[in-house]
């Protein structure tokens, strides 16, 4: 398998309050292979969206390097890497029609004349499952699912190789989100895409991703093949997320989960960042930060007690 995108030791900070700085992303390395769907899960504040913005060039890392197609590249925007945002209403210019919105990438690249461009717009709209009746509509006249398809079509016209999907279905209801997930799988085949799917919903990641990384407070705590990570989670945080998932089955109830707020937690300057929430935390967990270590084949965990 050939790596299309790689990050090495990426750090991103932002100021918070008077003197504090927060490391939103703290030394993250990951590789996305060609035609792969890579999932990034974690709670809000885990740094997963910041990581997505670094990949697309919307934000700059303060340390670390990016590799694209095997070559080291400067951080910045490029045509080959596009992004679909969580809030489709904010990501589409409310004054443009669907036709103008989808056409924009072609206009910028100065491809063909208007008739040729419209032909391509129609083809891509059909690919994302939208009727040509939609051409003249404005974003507010569409449902959330339709808007997200328009956002996808907009990125597809410039023929990207990687699309970062930032919580693409979290604003949609179940049926619209299921349809979008199926569409994403179909488009991946048709356009030869690789995805980085950012989501807090583990079941969504499980349905569409091949590999997954679990992030907690800026660090990757577990990564590996989706089946491995979800069937035999090695990090207590992964286990917590899996336990918390509400199964659509009245027989499987969520166990009672301790109430912890990240804001309540004492400063985690030393040791594993998860130790204040971890029931198995030992003295070592409080003092020493665990590194990402191989547990089994292509399964990496950052936990001192993973091997027990």
């Amino acid at each position, binding site marked *: 398998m050939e790596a299309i995108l790689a990050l090495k030791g990426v750090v991103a900070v932002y100021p918070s309050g008077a003197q504090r700085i927060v490391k939103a992303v703290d030394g993250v390395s990951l590789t996305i292979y060609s035609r792969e769907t890579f999932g990034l899960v974690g*709670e*809000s504040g885990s740094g997963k969206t910041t990581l997505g913005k670094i990949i697309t060039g919307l934000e700059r890392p303060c340390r670390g390097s990016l590799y694209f197609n095997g070559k080291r590249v400067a951080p910045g925007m490029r045509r080959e890497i596009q992004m679909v945002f969580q809030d489709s209403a904010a990501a589409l210019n409310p004054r443009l029609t669907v036709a103008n919105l989808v056409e924009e990438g072609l206009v910028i690249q100065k491809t063909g004349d208007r008739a040729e461009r419209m032909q391509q717009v129609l083809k891509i709209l*059909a690919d994302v*499952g*939208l*009727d040509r009746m939609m051409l003249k509509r404005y974003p507010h006249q569409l*449902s*959330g699912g*339709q808007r997200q398809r328009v956002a996808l079509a907009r990125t597809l016209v410039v023929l990207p190789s990687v699309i970062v999907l930032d919580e693409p279905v979290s604003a949609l*209801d*179940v*049926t*619209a*989100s*299921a*349809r979008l*997930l*199926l569409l994403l799988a179909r488009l991946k085949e048709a356009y030869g895409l690789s995805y980085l799917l950012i989501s*807090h*919903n*583990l*079941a*969504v990641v*499980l*349905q569409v991703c091949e590999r997954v990384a679990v992030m907690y407070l800026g660090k990757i705590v577990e990564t590996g093949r989706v089946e491995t990570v*979800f069937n035999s989670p090695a990090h207590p945080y992964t286990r*917590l*997320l*899996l*336990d*918390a*998932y*509400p*199964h*659509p*089955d*009245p*027989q*499987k*109830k*969520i166990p*009672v*989960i301790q*109430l912890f*707020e*990240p*804001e*309540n937690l004492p400063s985690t300057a030393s040791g594993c960042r998860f130790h204040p929430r971890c029931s198995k935390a030992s003295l070592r967990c409080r003092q020493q930060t665990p590194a990402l270590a191989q547990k089994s084949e292509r399964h990496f965990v950052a936990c001192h007690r993973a091997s027990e």
Partner: protein
Amino acid sequence: MLTITDLSVAFPASCVQALSEVSFFVAPGETVGIVGESGSGKSMTALAIAGLLPPVAKASGEIRFWGRRFVIGVSSDSDWRAIRGVELGVVFQDPSIGLNPLLSVGSQVSEVLRFHLRKSKLEAEKETVRLFNLLGLYPAKVRMRQFPHQLSGGMKQRVMLAAAICCRPRLLIADEPTTALDVSVQAQILCLLKELTAAADTALLLISHDLGVIAQLAERVLVLCAGQLVEEAAVAELFSRPAHPYTRFLLASVPRLDLPLALKVPAIEDNDQLLSGCGFASRCPERVSKCLSNPPLIRLSHGRKVRCHNRR
């Protein structure tokens, strides 16, 4: 306890029938779930029961709540105000809309107690501390003095919950209470809802598009599709033997951790509903010609109803 008869809501300006003749009941202490897609009318049901329908809506129907009778479109806002907050608590999806950004969260909860239960300032504050501790807003005395922007989404939702239950309502309406939250926080809120309603014997009307959330809490489920009640069943039966194709469609849409996504959809689907007939007919894989006329709601067995021509 709560009985709703022939509730209809329409928006004449945009020619939309949001709800048509929905009838159901909620028994004391019971948890009833309402599921449906966005636009199915589930939020309108919540607004109608709380008397908070937008003024452009044209609504009819009758609500009986613990012996009181409300006729929608006739009863005035002051009638609703007598029960809202006291006997009826409401929690909405977005907690930041319900909180005043300029007041501390503690004062917003104790204000409710002072207004409705005529408690003294000191009593109200003591009660608020108790509630904050109960809901895990530690340390309660510090949290009370904080402002909404200093709290996370999950904490704000717990403050809203505190304000909704502080007067020990007989019925709590929760409209997508966890949709905007992380999974772990969602699990906490769901556990809290379960504990609180069980402890105070409060009935809960839980509205969500997520069947996973419904499965966790509800005892009985109502399925809404295009403004109509299409299925009603006890939770175990609904998930093991869904009778309406729309319910099966919803179940197939939920991403699961144990099974692959079972949904089958055409390449281009049209979302336009048919003008007459069953609200799901345009998307139904089991559609027959009869479906162009609206099927009646048929009672299958005790407490089980379905609205489909083609039932098995």
